[in-house]
Each structure stands twice: as C-alpha cells, then as structure tokens.
C-alpha cells in the first residue's frame, strides 16, 4: 500500500506482468502485448494508404470518422446507458457549424471561410452546447421513453436542416462543406514529400487519422477517470449512484454534451469526405448506423467502437462483392430478388440481434475470447 505514496519505481523484478505501483497498472496500455498491437496498428495505418487505391483510402477515412462518432455514442449509450437515436442530428449540427464557419459563401448560403483551427473545435462545441441545453429534458426519462424522445429530435433536426436554407442550402440542393485548411495549410491538396507523392485523399485520411488518435486517447482517459466511473454507475443503478454522491442530472448532461462533441467532429469530417452535404444525410438511418457500430463493436469499450466502425463501413463493400455470386440486383431498381441496400439493412438487423443474444460484448467480446484462449494456452481455461 505504501508503495503508491513512496517514490514509484518501474521495477518488475524480472516478472513482466508484475505491477509495482498503481500508476503503471492504471496506464492505458498496461501490457507489452497492447503496446505491440498499437505499434503494429499505427505503422499499418501509415503505410496502408500508399498501397490502396483512391476509393479504399476514402473508405478508410470514413472508417476513422465512424470510429470517432461511434466512440461518442458509446460514451453516451455504452458507458452512461442513455440510448440515443439523435446521434445523426448532432453530426449534422457539427457539419453545418463547420460549413458555415469554414465554407465558401456561394449559391446563397452563408460561409465565412475561416481556418480549420477555428471551425474544427467549434464543430464539436456547438453540438455539445445544443446537447447540454436539451439534456435536462432527456435526463428526466429513461429506456424506451428516451429512445422515443431522441427519435423525435432526429426528425425535428432533419426538418430544420431542410428549412434553414441560408445555412444548409435546403432540401435536395445542399451545400459545399468546410474547407480543410489548417493554419493556412491545405489538407485537401496533392503534396510531394521526399519524392513520395501524397494525393489529396491520402492527406485527408491522415488528417482524420490524427484527429481520431487524439480523440480515442482522450476518450480512453476519460473512461478511466472518476467521470467514467460515474457514467457506469448511472447506467447500472441510478438510485444507488445518487446515494453515493453522483448527480444524475449533471452526469447525464455531461454524457450528452461529450457525445455530441464527438458527433460534431465526426459530422464535420464526414461532410468533407462525402464532398457535398444535403439535409437528408443526417437522418434516422445514419443514427441507426452508429447504433450498429456500438452494438456490433461492443458496448462500453473504446476498442469495440473502432472494430464496429470498421465492420459497419466495410460491410457494404463486402455485400457489393457478393452481388456477383448471389441473385442480388447491384442497383436500386427492380430486377433481382433484393437490391444491395436491402440486403445490407437485413444483414445489419440480423447481426445486431445475433450479437445481442450470443455475444453482448460484440466484436470486442469475440476478441476477448480469442485473447483468453491464447493466454491460457495450452490449457482450455
């Protein structure tokens, strides 16, 4: 016990898994294996864009954006236990905040053309403030009622986006997103560094990668803090949490605000990757996609949100590849038994049900099983 207060030494006495102080046990990457995986993952992500074609790199950026948004929703739904169908609404607010502050004024829409260093943080802060205003209402209800309340929010939001023409361009028209110019440095242009050509899609990928890494680490820190614990307490037993000194209103408001901050950043980046934003983008189905990210990836884990994002973004590609072998119409029109989009929705739905029943910890839970198998190897448990 006294070792924590005494001078902490990082000795392991020849035993790599022995912690000799609390700080090293609390570390995010507290085992050698985790550090190794992170290193491998990081190098893979840096090299990958140079090996893949343009479409795949853009898809990679979309994975990172879905991971950021997924982490946000997981903090709210997975950690704090507040189901939200309004995630797309907050993505939309983030996207339009960015577009107004960092976009061009063209075609009757407002655009201030500011730098990314200004619009990126504000694309997170504005949705967070909106969420903090709405949260006291949402904090009064739970479970199904909260789901319905947030469902209402996403439809109200879509309507507002369609009507607010000076900001959004209006239904069916849309507007150009913010310009990713960071401190005068255009992040959506081709560059050449040490003879290696970096195209604009790769640049965008790296921009998303940096923001993703920072936000994932911040989230990981947050979840091991006193606030992360109070989120989980509110989720598991709200009355007991109150009696233990956790304010429900303050905790839920914080959860909604932080979730919306992550959603806003994800929305701003998403709008840049898709190139043009229409109000219809921020609809109920985008919210469901994010719920799929966290349910399939694993509730209340940051790593799971990332796994879920990879899965949800990559699945349509897989389904497309399958269309050659199955009686599926690759387009939207009639013809085959199903079209691609229908099949995709069916697969999502089935997977959410299967994961809820078989492995509620999602893909992350599957990973835990694999890991534990090898940990115990050669024994079965």
């Amino acid at each position, binding site marked *: *016990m006294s070792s*924590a*207060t005494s001078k902490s030494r990082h000795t392991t006495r020849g035993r790599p898994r022995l912690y000799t*102080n*609390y*700080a090293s046990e*609390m570390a995010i990457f507290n085992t050698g294996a985790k550090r190794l995986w992170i290193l491998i993952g990081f190098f893979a992500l840096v090299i990958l864009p140079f090996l893949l074609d343009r479409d795949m790199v853009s898809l990679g950026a979309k994975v990172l954006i879905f991971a950021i948004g997924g982490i946000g929703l997981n903090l709210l739904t997975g950690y704090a236990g507040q189901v939200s169908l309004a995630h797309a609404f907050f993505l939309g607010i983030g996207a339009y905040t960015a577009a107004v502050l960092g976009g061009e004024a063209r075609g009757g829409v407002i655009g201030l053309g500011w730098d990314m260093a200004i619009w990126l943080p504000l694309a997170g802060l504005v949705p967070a403030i909106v969420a903090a205003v709405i949260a006291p209402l949402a904090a009064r209800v739970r479970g199904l009622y909260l789901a319905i309340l947030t469902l209402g929010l996403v439809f109200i939001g879509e309507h507002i986006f369609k009507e607010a023409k000076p900001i959004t361009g209006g239904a069916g028209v849309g507007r150009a997103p913010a310009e990713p110019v960071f401190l005068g440095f255009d992040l959506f242009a081709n560059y050449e560094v040490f003879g290696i050509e970096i195209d604009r899609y790769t640049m965008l990928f790296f921009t998303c990668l940096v923001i993703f890494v920072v936000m994932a680490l*911040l989230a990981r*820190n*947050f979840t*091991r*803090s*006193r*606030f*992360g*614990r*109070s989120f*989980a*307490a509110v*989720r*598991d*037993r709200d*009355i*007991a*949490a*109150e*009696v*233990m*000194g*956790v*304010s*429900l209103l303050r905790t839920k408001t*914080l959860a909604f605000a932080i979730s919306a901050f992550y959603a806003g950043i994800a929305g701003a980046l998403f709008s840049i990757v898709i190139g043009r934003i229409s109000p219809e983008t921020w609809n109920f189905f985008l919210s469901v996609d994010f719920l799929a990210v966290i349910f399939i990836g694993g509730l*209340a884990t940051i790593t799971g949100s990332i796994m879920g994002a990879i899965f949800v973004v990559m699945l349509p590609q897989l389904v497309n590849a399958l269309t050659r072998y199955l009686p599926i119409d690759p387009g939207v029109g009639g013809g085959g038994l199903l079209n691609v989009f229908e099949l995709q929705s069916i697969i999502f739905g089935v997977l959410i049900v299967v994961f809820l029943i078989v492995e509620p910890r999602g893909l992350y839970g599957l990973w835990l099983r694999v890991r534990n198998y090898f940990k115990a190897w050669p024994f079965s448990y």
Partner: protein
Amino acid sequence: MVELTPILQANELALSFGGTKALRGVSFSVEEGELFAVIGPNGAGKTSIFNCISGVYRPQEGNVTMQGEEIVGKAPEDVAHMGIARMFQNIELFDNLTVLDNLMLGRGSHMDYSVLSAFLFTPKARRQEVANRAVVEDIIDFLDIENYRAYPVGMLPYGVKKRVELGRALAMQPKLLLLDEPVAGMNVEETEDMARFILDVRAEMGISMILVEHDMGLVMDLADRVLVLDFGEQIALGTPDVVQADPNVIRAYLGEEML
C-alpha cells in the same frame, strides 16, 4: 458513552404515500460513535426512515439534522457529500464495474479534478486517482476481499457482494453509516463475519451507525440503543434490555395474548 453529542437528529418525521402512513411522528437522535438500531415487523417503516435520511424520500412533516445542518429537502447526492453513506437492503452494486471500481466510485466526493483534466489525465488527476486508490486498497484489505478485486461485481457470490457494498460505503469515509439489513439471507458464519466487520468499523474508524435488521440476536448483541417501530409508529426507544422487556414491543412482535 461519556459525551453525548448527537450527530443525527430526527424530529417528528411523518411520511405517507396517499392514504398509507409509513411514518407517524418518529423522533430519535444518534450520538457520536453510537450503534443505533431500528427494528420492527415488516412494513413498520424502517427502510422509509433510511430513505428520508438519505434524501430519496421527502417526509411531509418533521425534519432531520446532521450535525445541526438540515437534511430534508436536499438531493441524495448532496446528503452523500455531507458524510452519510448507505448499504442497501437488496444489493445495489454497480454490476458491470469491478470491485475496485465500485469502491473507487465511493471515493468520488474526495476527488475534484475537472472534466478537462480527466480527458487529458493530467498529473493532478493521476495523483488523486493514485491517492484514492491507496485508501480503497486499505478498505479491500480490511474487508478481506483482495481476491475479488478485479472481478465484475455481478459475478460474485451473495456474501461477498454484501461485503463489497459495505466497502463501497466505507470508501466514502462517512460520518454516519446506514446499514439496511446487512446480514439478511446470510448463514451463521457469514452473519458472524459481518457482525465482526461492523464492530471493527466502529472500533477502528469510529463511524456512527444506524442498523436496520431482523436478526434479533445480532441487534441485541451489537446495538447501544434500539428504536422499535410498528406501523410507522414509534413504540419503544432505549437500551436493548429495556426494549426487550417493554410490553408494547412484545405485543407488536408476538401478539396480544402472550402478555
């Protein structure tokens, strides 16, 4: 008891749910370091008293003061910050958190780093986490639950859960501890263990306690004074021997013809 300074004082508490009167004018005070027991048949209003003290219910009449400060009307989390901790009748632990995190949650009011420093895990946050972790480890040591430290609470057996719940309440370093049936559903050995822990808590930490319990042997052995309730009414208050001999108490528990 040499010096009598009440830590908690309840005056004429009355609580009703529609037509049902849960409490009808209950008054008592708990002294510094005292182990005060509340007993009574099922539905007598014992847990209602706890809910009034911890801010979950608001009594229609009467007031409760903690070291002179009014409690009635305060939100549960504010009551907790005043130094009142509680162990629930039906275990109310955070099932998906580990034993360690459950106890660390009890340390919440002893940490004050901001949201921003939580995100950045600044040295201040780290220092507070480590310092409070040391306190929690002492309690884990005290309750002999080292082996379960890293397990999610939902997986643990009943007796251990009860002990973890006591630990979570102790982690708050309360001035007053409310124990709602700490040995309900336990066998003889587990009951004796819990009784030992309760006595140790009093001896080592000097925390005042209010105990609600159906196990009469335990109450009469441990308590300094006993309050007896029947249908929300206060029918006796005094030392265990006095209460045991009180005809009203015998009538409430055993019926009229036993006298």
